[in-house]
């Protein structure tokens, strides 16, 4: 197996995808669907959004033609790999009740087909690691997540062009990946088309690289990859260490700023839904018309809903400000207490996909600095 970096051109990338498909993997990767870059079935590298880049700002997302014919010039899109690991809806069990009232219980055991995801960004790799810790790292395991995780093959891509809402470096991550991939690519754009530097992260990744046409990466290629990474990190120059600042949020629970943010926040839950680490789910029991069977379904939930904290007469968190506080303090601060790390990876989706553009970078910085 290759231990040192390899390099290849797009044709070998196509061979890689074909091999994965041959081995029974469903292969998905970033594609342009309507107005956004989303994960969709990927046949060849030609299906990638060639020459397309994105502009992201708080509450704004748009795609534009790039001046280069790069394959991976757009940053993270609206959806993370979470959709494929921790699906928005999954069956937990079915219970049937016989005429004599006896209950028989059928647990659902998912057996998903192998999935290869191309173009996973470093921030989303860290997000996977955080979800691993929550959903399969404790004494109890979410069986759907665990099954989906086991079948996953990841071809990650380092970021050359962070978007305007990216802040992975302020969270101590990115823009290059260090672990959690089977294969890691760095795209080196060029007039003759892009070349890729590829590193194997697992035996499976190494075997796949051995099966396609590659060369040993040259010192010049490696140097260029390092320069691109440094330039990308430079683009995200953060004024505040949000990883550190975030830990202090739990010391500011009495701040008046929460109510002020509550006036600007829609409580629509888009931030939590688009967050790659938000894991909260609701358990819903339904019955058939005949009332003889009952199904439990696990669905995405959000701390922005009233039912989320419902107890006795109503929600514990009634005001929008208190719900925003729960989301932000949990993500940046109490996640450390619960799981030993921050819950944020700096992907910026909650900023871009907030319909009214609330920017967690700004809110974390100013609340953690406030006097209360």
């Amino acid at each position, binding site marked *: 197996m290759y231990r040192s970096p390899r390099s290849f051109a797009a044709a070998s990338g196509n061979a890689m995808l074909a091999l994965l498909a041959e081995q029974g993997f469903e292969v998905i990767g970033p594609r342009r669907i309507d107005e956004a870059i989303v994960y969709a079935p990927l046949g060849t590298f030609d299906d990638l959004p060639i020459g397309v880049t994105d502009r992201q700002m708080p509450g704004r997302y748009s795609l534009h033609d790039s001046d280069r014919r790069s394959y991976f010039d757009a940053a993270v899109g609206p959806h993370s790999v979470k959709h494929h690991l921790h699906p928005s809806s999954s069956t937990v069990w079915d219970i049937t009740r016989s005429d004599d009232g006896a209950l028989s219980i059928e647990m659902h055991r998912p057996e998903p087909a192998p999935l290869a995801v191309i173009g996973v960004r470093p921030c989303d790799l860290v997000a996977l690691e955080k979800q691993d810790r929550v959903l399969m790292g404790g004494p109890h395991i979410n069986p759907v997540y665990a099954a989906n995780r086991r079948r996953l093959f990841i071809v990650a891509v380092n970021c050359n062009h962070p978007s305007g809402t990216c802040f992975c470096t302020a969270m101590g991550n990115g823009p290059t990946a260090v672990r959690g991939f089977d294969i890691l690519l760095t795209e080196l754009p060029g007039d003759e088309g892009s070349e890729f530097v590829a590193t194997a992260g697992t035996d499976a990744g190494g075997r796949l690289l051995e099966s396609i046409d590659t060369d040993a990466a040259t010192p010049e290629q490696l140097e260029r990859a390092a320069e691109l990474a440094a330039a990308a990190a430079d683009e995200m120059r953060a004024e505040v260490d949000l990883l550190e600042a975030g830990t202090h949020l739990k010391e500011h629970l*009495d701040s008046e700023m929460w109510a002020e943010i509550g006036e600007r926040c829609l409580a629509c839950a888009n931030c939590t839904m688009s967050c790659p680490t938000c894991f909260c789910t609701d358990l819903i029991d339904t019955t058939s018309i005949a009332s003889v069977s009952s199904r439990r379904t696990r669905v995405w939930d959000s701390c922005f809903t009233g039912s989320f904290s419902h107890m006795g007469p109503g929600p514990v968190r009634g005001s929008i400000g208190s719900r925003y506080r729960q989301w932000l303090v949990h993500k940046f601060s109490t996640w450390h207490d619960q799981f030993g790390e921050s819950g944020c990876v700096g992907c910026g989706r909650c900023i871009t996909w907030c319909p009214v553009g609330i920017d967690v970078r700004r809110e974390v910085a100013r609340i953690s600095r406030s006097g209360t």
Partner: protein
Amino acid sequence: MNAAPIAQPGRDTSGTTLDSLLVPRPYHVIAKRLETHDVTTLHVVPCDGGRPPSFKPAQVGMVGAFGVGEAALSISSEVHQLSQHSYTIRRAGPITNALIDTPIGGTVTVRGPFGRPWPIDDLDGGSLVIFGGGLGLAPLRAVIHEALRRRSDFTDLRVLIGARTPRDLIFRDEYAAWDERGAHVAVIVDNRDDDWAGPIGMIPDLLDDQTRAEVDWVTAHVMICGPDPMMASVSKRLTGLGVETSRIWWTMERNMQCGNALCGHCQFGPIIVCRDGPVVNLADIEPYVGIEEL
């Protein structure tokens, strides 16, 4: 997704063990006892003929009514009652109504037990003071029985009980027996009714001059279960008496859904109640007590 029927709870057909705490186990309701006008104790045994799992005081079962949902309930039976469990339930909505209305012989489901128990195994003697407000006595019943069984481990055992009215007192016929077995039991109600001759007031009022003088507060361990404001007011009085917050334990209640620290609902600041509670040490949650809408 494929549905794999399982032969018995805790096993899937491929032979690997399924996390048994994720799988509901059917139980028959074998007896019901009306505690108050809106509180009923269900006595349940597994339908499969086996024993219920062992548990520690205050641990929680997710008790399910077919098609309606599950409620998180502390087991109210004694830990040495091996053949059956009991749950003491107040009517608070569709799920608890369905559970209470399950007929004798009817079936409910249980997952668990979950959570951190009262730390009775870890106490270094001294006095043990237990406060139960209203239905809060239910998660304390097992630890009271356990303390009585180990009575000689403690220099003093106090059980201080409060309720809105005498009609709201649960396990009322057991108080005399607890007292006989060596617990000082005191009871107070907010509002009297006709046959009440005892004291009237709030639970902290049970800390009268005599009690304050009799208990060795420096060595005291305190367990409190009741509504949040009651636990806060009792704790405030106790810290005033010199009890360290690290010697005071509460039970927290939040919207517990999965019981497995996987769904995120039951957070209270840094605490995930189903994992880090329901019993929590006051020193661990002190900065978060009293913060509105947390």
